[in-house]
């Protein structure tokens, strides 16, 4: 067989017009997704994007793969049925902060704990985009929106804390405009076997513009973001002059060189730690008290749900004496009338 020509990112574009607002962060995510598909040369017909409802959930229409634009919040459940029966497919769940954490929180939780080998990408714009600007479970406390004109009074969820609390095996975060970083994270998610949960900070320039300016803006990001690297100490700042240290009871920011602090005193990131404790710790670092970590928080291997189930089926099929309908019908007590 002749080798197929390599697919470029644009080969993964469907023929549908992209319908997000001009300037929406979703464009960048779409571009990086296509790039990663090209990098990994994922076979188009073997990939399926499953989504719920929301601006972000329009994503599947724009990829020339298979896709289901589902109902609000249920994408992980749809993906579960698909993946269990078709383990060989590359299954991606696209969801929003409302879709995934408000109405769909429970399905997210269970898809994660089951460790289905799917990639869940949560576009977190801290707002309901499609329904025109209500607050979401990740909106800041006190947020004024259409549905909270006096400010919201519920404490926001930290998506990564939720995922880690739900036994996630791969957890990561990136930012729509950090295209290189984003592509790397998506690629790592794709490569991870088992559930991958990725939170992407996404700007909604219509209803929540600038929500992540502190992390996205070129002049501020060095101070407000710390990039996680496996086996490396947590350092940030323009010249990596600052770091994160565990002081015995909590994390703290330190400056290298001051008070005799050197790189060796810093927390060293271990994405492979069996215990989710340190990943959880990192998920609690929030701006403005802390720089926010981006990159891979946790990345461990465990057999996936569909693999274990299909193994049971295979084993039963192989060891079962007779798998015919005949034997099924005749199981249990039977008698003959002549």
């Amino acid at each position, binding site marked *: 067989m002749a080798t197929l020509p390599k697919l470029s990112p644009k080969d993964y574009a469907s023929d549908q017009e992209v319908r997000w607002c001009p300037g929406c962060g979703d464009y960048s995510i779409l571009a990086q997704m296509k790039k990663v598909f090209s990098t990994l040369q994922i076979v*188009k*017909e*073997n990939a*399926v994007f499953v989504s719920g409802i929301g601006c972000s959930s329009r994503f599947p229409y724009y990829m020339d793969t298979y896709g289901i*634009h589902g*109902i609000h919040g249920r994408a992980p459940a749809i993906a*579960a*049925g698909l993946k269990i029966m078709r383990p060989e497919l590359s299954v991606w769940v696209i969801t929003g902060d409302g879709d995934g954490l408000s109405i769909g929180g429970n399905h997210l939780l269970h898809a994660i704990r089951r460790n289905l080998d799917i990639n869940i990408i949560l576009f977190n714009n801290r707002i309901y985009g499609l329904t025109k600007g209500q607050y979401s479970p990740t909106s800041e406390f006190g947020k004024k929106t259409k549905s909270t004109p006096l400010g919201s009074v519920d404490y926001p969820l930290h998506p990564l804390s939720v995922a880690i609390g739900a036994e996630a095996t791969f957890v990561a975060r990136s930012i729509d405009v950090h295209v290189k970083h984003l592509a790397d994270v998506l690629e790592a998610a794709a490569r991870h076997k088992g559930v991958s949960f990725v939170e992407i900070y996404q700007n909604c320039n219509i209803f929540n513009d600038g929500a992540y300016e502190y992390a996205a803006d070129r002049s501020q990001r060095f101070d407000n973001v710390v990039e996680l690297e496996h086996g490396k100490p947590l350092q940030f700042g323009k010249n990596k002059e600052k770091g994160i240290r565990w002081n015995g009871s909590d994390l703290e920011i330190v400056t290298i060189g001051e008070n005799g602090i050197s790189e060796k005193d810093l927390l060293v990131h271990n994405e492979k730690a069996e215990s989710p404790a340190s990943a959880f710790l990192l998920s609690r670092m929030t701006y403005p008290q802390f720089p926010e970590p981006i990159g891979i928080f946790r990345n461990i291997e465990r057999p996936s749900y569909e693999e274990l189930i299909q193994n049971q*089926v295979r084993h039963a099929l192989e060891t079962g004496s007779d798998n015919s309908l005949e034997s099924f019908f005749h199981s249990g007590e039977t*008698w003959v009338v002549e």
Partner: protein
Amino acid sequence: MTTATEQSHLVKRVEEIESATVRFAGDSGDGMQLVGEQFTTATVVFGNDISTLPDYPAEIRAPAGTLAGVSGFQINFSSQEVHTPGDRIDALFALNPAALKVNLPDLRFGGVIVADADAFTKENLEKVGYKSNPLEDDSLREYKVVSIPLSDMNFKAVEGLGLDRKTANRCKNFFALGLAFWLYDRPMEPTIRWVQQKFVKRPAIMDANLRTLKAGYHFGETAEIFTSSYRINRAVIPPGTYRKISGNEGIAMGLVAAAKLANKPLFYASYPITPASDILHSLSAKKNYGVVTFQAEDEIAAMCAVIGAAYGGSLAVTGTSGPGVALKSEAIGLAVMTELPAVIVNVQRGGPSTGLPTKTEQADLFQAIFGRNGECPVPVVAAATPADCFETAIEACRIALQFMTPVILLSDGYLANGSEPWRIPDIDSLPKIDVNYHTNKYNFQPYSRNERLGRPWAVPGTPELQHRIGGLEKQHITGNVNYDPDNHEYMVKLRDEKIHGIQEDIPPLEINGDATGDLLVLGWGGAYGSIMTAVEKARREKRSVSSAHLRYLNPFPKNLENVLSGFKKILIPELNLGQLRFIIRSRFLIDSEGLNKIKGKPFQVNEIYEKIVDLLEN
């Protein structure tokens, strides 16, 4: 030990009867369901026709000795065809006062009561409000009371096996069973085999159960407390290999069969709920037939997983009861819009809300047909008997796969737990379900149509057929998202027509009896047995009545209007306030009589029979 005299003595005491209805009743913890199952097995193996009705409380184990805690199992068996578990009980085995009190109203005059005298203690009597002991105060003089120290005899039977008192007492149901076996001349072998297998790792328990079983049997034989035992001859049943089947087993088998017939993998996603859970249990043990089951986090997830699996090319099925269907209804709408094959099994129970979880009802028909937002047509089929669950499940799958649509299959608690003999079909006689994935890439359009108006089933992994589906309105042919007003109307009507078109693919409604007459009894679902029996009884009396039973509730069979028009009156018995009747009135502008019972129990034959007579005579 048996002497010749005794032998002849025995022979004399056997009375031949056509049929009998027996109910075993006791505390939820007394193992009455097990006794019922064992008696049933023995009876079908012996060769009678049967129908059974288990009845148990919503609590796992309500407080011992209370009315609420009574668990019962009824079986009707006969040398003739049997369609119902029987209206009135001929013999009641009551293991405590509560069981007596709850079940006495159903016992026929002159019926037998076998009671465990040991359980009629002051405390137990008081618990259920008996002021004096009915076994002794002559209040049961209309019945044949057989009061025996059953608990005590059981203890004696298992003595010496080293069981503690509690464990020993647990065996007493087998004493009762043994006695019942003797009374109705049933073979003990199937039960003996079952005990031997079940307790293979616990020999003391095995021994205890076998001993007390036999003790019960021999007690009947020797004690001379019954004036006779009964013999019910084998029924004249078409030749073949038979097994007992409950409705839930029937559905499980039907689904596995349908998957094989269609040559598609079976995926069953469900969230446990009474009375549907047993389908999940049964299928989860069928991995050796390639079945994959998925206990989802809730009913919504189960339905959504079905959608995902169906998109991936599986025969995808979910099962639940009414409250679960309520939760699934949004997702069923998505399956309608995406036109994916799926079967939703609803084993109906008493409603509304949590209602009567362990009781039967037929009140989810409206929900099945109308219970979604928008114009959202879904085919609905209903099973008539436990064995019919098998066939209806296959039929539901066939329609789903051939028309690319979700299908709702209605069963109910009565069918689900009740059982009857089932002649195991010849596999080759089952029709293949002809469905192929679409693989042809030329001019592929995800919403193009075949002659049945079904769209192509192109599954992920198929080269060059990448396409996206979803819940927004679709453009005809291309399947693209489309907000055009005319397209929407076109698609709404198209989806409607597709479901309507199933009429062309289903058999006409059959009439049991004459095609014209004074009265037609039209039924659906689990009311079948009672209707059949009542109508046959009336017909034997030369009354002008026929019956017809709808398996297809949406769409109706094409000839339904025609069938209805042959009769002066129509009677529709339903375990609801008249849901089918409401629909029939609207569809055909035809009036009918309703017979409506909402008591969590199936129809008694007599209830229907009396209504028939009433309608014919007035």
